[in-house]
């Protein structure tokens, strides 16, 4: 695909950020509103896929130098690690903790370890989707 896709590439440059922000919103809002790690992961992967379509795999690789399989692994580690928190404190596996924490700059914040778990899901989904798309895309 060597035609000059000026329109596509320019639109992509703008839209990718919007999609990415939307996925961030879906991820963070997941506990209270529709969304969550899974959909957010898929949407982020969609944003990257759009750049893949507009440019090519080499360009995307130079922009985002991520080992997607490693990303999947890290996601799984997050999910598993969250579960281990409960084990360390003497509760059953995957017991989540939540509460209000007074952070230095932000101040009083409601935090929940389920978010870390969701982050794991998010990373796995992004990693998996990108692995599949990139692998098949590069196959011939």
């Amino acid at each position: 695909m060597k035609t000059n896709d000026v329109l596509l590439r320019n639109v992509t440059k703008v839209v990718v950020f919007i999609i990415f922000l939307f996925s961030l919103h879906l991820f963070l809002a997941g506990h209270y509103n529709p969304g969550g790690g899974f959909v957010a992961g898929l949407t982020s992967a969609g944003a990257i896929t759009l750049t893949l379509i507009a440019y090519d795999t080499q360009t995307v690789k130079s922009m985002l130098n991520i080992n997607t399989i490693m990303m999947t692994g890290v996601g799984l580690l997050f999910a598993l690690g969250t579960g281990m928190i409960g084990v360390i404190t003497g509760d059953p596996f995957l017991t989540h903790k939540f509460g209000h924490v007074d952070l230095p700059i932000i101040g009083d914040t409601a935090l929940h370890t389920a978010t870390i778990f969701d982050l794991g899901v998010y990373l796995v989904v992004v990693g998996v989707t990108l692995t599949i798309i990139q692998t098949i895309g590069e196959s011939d």
Partner: protein
Amino acid sequence: MSFLHLAIFLPFLMAMLIPIFYRWTNQLHTGWIVLPIPVILFIYFLTFIPQTMQGVVTETMPWIPSLGINFTVVVDGLSLLFALLITGIGSLVTFYSIFYLGKKKERLNNFYAFLFIFMTAMLGVVLSDNLVVLYLFWEMTSISSFLLIGYWYHRERSRYGARKSLLITVFGGLMLLGGILLLHVITGSFSLREIIGEASVVQASSLFIPAMILILLGAFTKSAQVPFHVWLPDAMEAPTPVSAYLHSATMVKAGLYLVARFTPLFAVSGVWFWTISLVGIVTLFWGSITATKKQDLKAILAYSTISQLGMIMTLLGVGAAALHYDSWSDDIYIGALVAAVFHLFNHATFKGSLFMMVGIVDHETGTRDIKRLGGLMRIMPITATIAFIGTFAMAGLPPFNGFLSKEMFFQSMVDVTTLNLFNADTWGILLPVIAWVGSIFTFVYSMIIFFKTFGGKLKPHLLPKKPHEAPLGLLLPPLILSALVVITGLFPNLIAKPLLEPAVKSIMPSLYGTDYHVHISFWHGFTMALLMTFGVIILGILLYKTANWWRPFIKEKVPRFFQWGKAYDNSMYYMEQGSYRFTLWIMTGWLRTYLNYMLMAFIILMLGTIFATDALNFDISTISRVTMMDYVLALVIVVTLVGVVFSKSRITSIILLGAMGYTISIFFIVARAPDLALTQLVIETISVVLYLLVFYHLPQFSNIEEKPKWLSVKTLISFGVGLVVFLISLSAYDTTFYDSISQYYIDNTYTKAAGKNIVNVILVDFRGFDTLFETVVLAVASIGIFGMVKLRLARREKNENK
């Protein structure tokens, strides 16, 4: 653990040491090293005679006490008789084999190891009281006998014979195990004595007949009774010492032992009486007739063994009638049991000597074919004497022990006609008649063995070797056995009191404590039995003289009519062919066929269950209101579905599938499931893209678009599956049995998990464990795709570089 247990395992322990001795003693024949074991055991078992004349000796060793399985050894008259036969003839056979098997040519370590394992197994069978232990040793005899028959495993016939005997005896062994388990179910015990002690419970049980039949199957297969006798003639491929030991004196008598052991338990039944008597008499008859037509000396002896075992079996069957008499004084049927035990002993002695005699003839002339043999009397006088004693004892002629037991056999057969139990008065007359005819043929084949081998003219040109008398080592064991034949023939009461009487008492335990005594008289007047013996001799001589005239008839005409061996071979062939064809027919290798099987099984099982349990119900009051939106969406889905199924091109199907997916996500929106709708939308997009990718890469030749066929098995199955799932869904819709647990989640999502999106909270918090593994599933899938694509590429590159 007592010395008695050790005695049973002594040959087994020796078998473990044999390879060591074999390796380190090059000069000495291995047989000399192992010979002391059976001799010591024989002497050891002789010391039990005074004790068994009084009662029984019991020793217990716990094995699996929690299951009631203990290695209990009980020595009573019957066990002791068998133990003496096993160790006595075992010693003689070991001695004989030292001279029979060459030290250079044969793998003696294998031979003696197998033989001694067999000896342990056989001792275990006859001495065990626990039925599970008995079964263990029972299978051990089958396996060691299999190894011994296949000793010359480079011969095709040896392997065939070994396989045949193993299949048949293990079949019987498994039946026996079934019988044992049934007896355990009835009585809760594995101990033979305890089970016999509860005989009345067993006899009242509905499992009485099945248990009896299973145990009889075990006994009949082991003792080569019709129709399971086919393995024994083929087992003659074993070395002759093995034939002498296993297939005449010991293993084939294990079935008789079992029948005798279970007599106090089962003998009340007419089924037992008639089955054993009839099977025995048919075996006697068939075996003796078949023996007369055989050429090979060992084959004649094999069929004669079958026939003699049938005779003992008949006697045990008739002896079962004795259980119905409370007082032994007016009981003539106890005589049948005495005859059975006596003939069992006699048969072991003369058949052992005859097999050894055949081994000598084979060894010294190089053939066993009676057509080529003849006139050996001058050259091998001692062997001829042994053969004379053995064959005449087998034919039932005085003054040998076979005469006495045959007289007693005839007497018992005559007595059956006066029995007024089990309808014996109507059909009982069959037994003496068949027995008599069978005995005539017994006489004929005995004469054939002796006169065709030793009488007539010598045919030196037909013999592979120049015949000469055997060395003393080969002659000694059969001479000892022949001496026993003559001694017990002339002085039967020498063994009557110490051996036979305790044996009979252990078959009929009610005799203990009474003053019953076995007395065998040589002459008891002109009875019916004596007249029958005269008839046997006269007709036997006539038949022998005219043998050339009638033998071709049974040799060629009868086999055309029916052959047991053929039946076995054919059944094996058809079983193999049948299973092969069946597998070919059912395992087509096409996934669609297997899918058809699975779905058909699903339909049949589900419909069957629904109708069998009357599960079809649907309560209309619980359904919710259907809106216009639902109708529209359902219509769209049905339309896309029909399109997917009937579209001519694949790409249409893919697009329609995507459309259906999006419609379902709208369904989710309508049903107020925003998370599901979001995910469904994205996932549907990705999967449609992947479908298109696959479609794009389809190879050209398989890209021919085809229209699915109407009306086929597949259509029917599809409709069936749809209908069944529909019915199940309808029936399962009734949720009135249990309340939903969702109220808990609604109540606690915020208070306990600090969230408001109940779906997400369930996913990451309440049921986060599932989510964890779903992410693992995704990871595995992606790594799988990565691996498949990358490894394929790597392989292709390697091939291109070649």
